[in-house]
């Protein structure tokens, strides 16, 4: 079921250290989930710890691994973690967090900000 893809994944050629590192984080997740399923607070703490210990680049690789392994619970967990990291933050903060460059023409971005001014009220300080 869940782990058929895992077996196939390890049977495949690429078994470099980075891949193994990612797998060691993703694979124990189901057990972790079962242990602390009932306790939201613990899950939150685990999430915080994960975010602190994992570089954003690794978080992306974790998401890609979970997606490839078709591991829905892990994928949802990582997506939720990313969402929590950027909620109520300013656009600049999010841009820096993702390392994302704008591809807007000058003036386009300002136009969008103006149109959705209501969404920019009350964001957290950077």
């Amino acid at each position, binding site marked *: 079921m869940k782990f058929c893809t895992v077996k196939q994944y390890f049977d495949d050629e690429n078994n470099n250290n980075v891949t193994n590192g990612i797998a060691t984080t993703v694979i124990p997740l189901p057990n972790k989930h079962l242990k602390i399923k009932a306790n939201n607070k613990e899950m939150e703490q685990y999430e*915080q710890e994960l*975010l*602190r*210990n*994992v*570089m*954003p*680049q690794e*978080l*992306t690789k974790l*998401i*890609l691994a979970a*997606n490839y392994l078709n591991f829905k619970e892990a*994928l*949802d967990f990582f*997506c*939720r973690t*990313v*969402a*929590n*990291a*950027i*909620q*109520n933050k*300013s*656009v600049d*903060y*999010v*841009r*820096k*967090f*993702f*390392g*994302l*460059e*704008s*591809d*807007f023409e000058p003036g386009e*971005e300002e136009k*969008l*900000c103006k*149109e*959705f001014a*209501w*969404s*920019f*009220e*009350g*964001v957290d300080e*950077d």
Partner: protein
Amino acid sequence: MGSKLPNNGEKLRLTSMQLEDDMEQRDLQFSQKVGLSTCTRQEDIISELPTDVLSSILSYLTLRDAVKTSVLSHRWTRICASRLSLIFDRHNIMPTLGYPCLDYKHIFVGAVNQFLQFYEGTHVVSFQLRFCLGMDCANNIDQWISFANKMGAENITICFDCGWNCLGPPSGYKREEMYVFGSELLSQATEFKLNCLRLQA
């Protein structure tokens, strides 16, 4: 350091070194603040993720946070504009909006209309509205319900009570001012997908 004053060349070099130090210091502070383990400059970490994963991330954000991400790049604009679950309430539009709703409904209604104009998706799974509105906003409400139905929403929830007890007199709607729902609004979809309609006053 010697008592001799540095010449201009040295001064400039020291200044630019200081600037670099400052920037590195700021980057380090930012990295520590967001909880990143070690980093100086950020590479783009998000663009290699597939679109459905980015949609999933956005689905965990409120509408207002999702709308902010539309400013990141064209790709993010498109993803935000095809959001599947639309929730229009105080928390999703503007948590800092004042009370009673009656006095601020023009902001709320404006925000909803703006988003729906910006919307490019072909399909909506669920549509929720929760705000104190009455017959005076009937045109808008009719359009929103029609929109939800045309987009094939499976769940439509319309609640004219923001949940904060602001409907009591003198700020509330009298019975004759309450919105009247017309079932003809649901007859416009080519394919009827609605399986749950909830109306609350």
